[in-house]
């Protein structure tokens, strides 16, 4: 998988390393900015309210 990506990146080893780093940072950014905030309410740490219907807080 990673080998396949590496083989398909252009340039010499240094360019590929630089592009890889950018790709990794982009993935981490998307995770922290979008994926994790979406996934976090599915876990119980946000359940701090009393409610009947679960509408106010999951």
């Amino acid at each position: 998988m990673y080998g396949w990506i590496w083989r398909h990146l252009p340039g010499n080893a240094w360019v590929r390393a630089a592009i890889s780093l950018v790709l990794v940072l982009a993935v981490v950014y998307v995770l922290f900015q979008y994926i994790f905030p979406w996934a976090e309410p599915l876990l119980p740490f946000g359940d701090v309210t009393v409610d009947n219907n679960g509408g106010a807080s999951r």
Partner: protein
Amino acid sequence: MRAGALSLRLVLRTLSELCVTAGTLIILFVVHLLFWTGVRADRAMDGEVDRLQHSWSQSQRAHPRPSSTAGSPRPGRDAPAPPASGTYREGKAFAVMYIPRLGHGWHKPVLEGTSTGVLRRGLGHYTGTARLGATGNFSVAGHRRTYGDPFKDFPRLRPGDPVVLTDGASWYTYRIDTRPYRTLPSDVGVIDPVPARSGFTGPGRYLTLTTCDPEWGHSHRLIVWAHLDARHPVGEGKPEALNG
């Protein structure tokens, strides 16, 4: 034979790469929960407090008045939350809470509403419960863990501890009456105007704080109740509960 060994190698390599990827994802998610939500929440809460204090100082300048009464001025223009008046707008901060027991300098903004997005930026006031300082039960929820851990030390609260709030016009000093009370999430009676298990017998100016229990779980809730002990105009300076 040789092709079989090659494809087996490919399968094993892909499998191990997936495992490493999954492990990295989990570690990153834990970093997000333990560290990054705190960084974000602290920044958001400081921003809310700054915005509040800015709007208060502006409305103070526009309507200088030494003391506050229930009848209130209507600062026009851009003062979003006129102190002690107007309606609480969903997702907007309207007060700052201080609890010395939770740490010297512990202070958090109180926002209207208890949705997930609101609780990421501060404590949440249950919509429909009493207004700050009013007769009834002013009820507030906060995160125990993640998002700045505002109520991490909730179990250390004891009867007599002050909970101080300000809305820019007055300081409200509530005194806690109960040790943290553990109950089920469905026990909505705890935020009733006169909560049944609190020991309060008649109508009064009460405060309820709720958070989750156990610390990282969601099976129960921790509750403390308090009553309004004193109210001063902001002109008289900080209440002594905050100076000790």
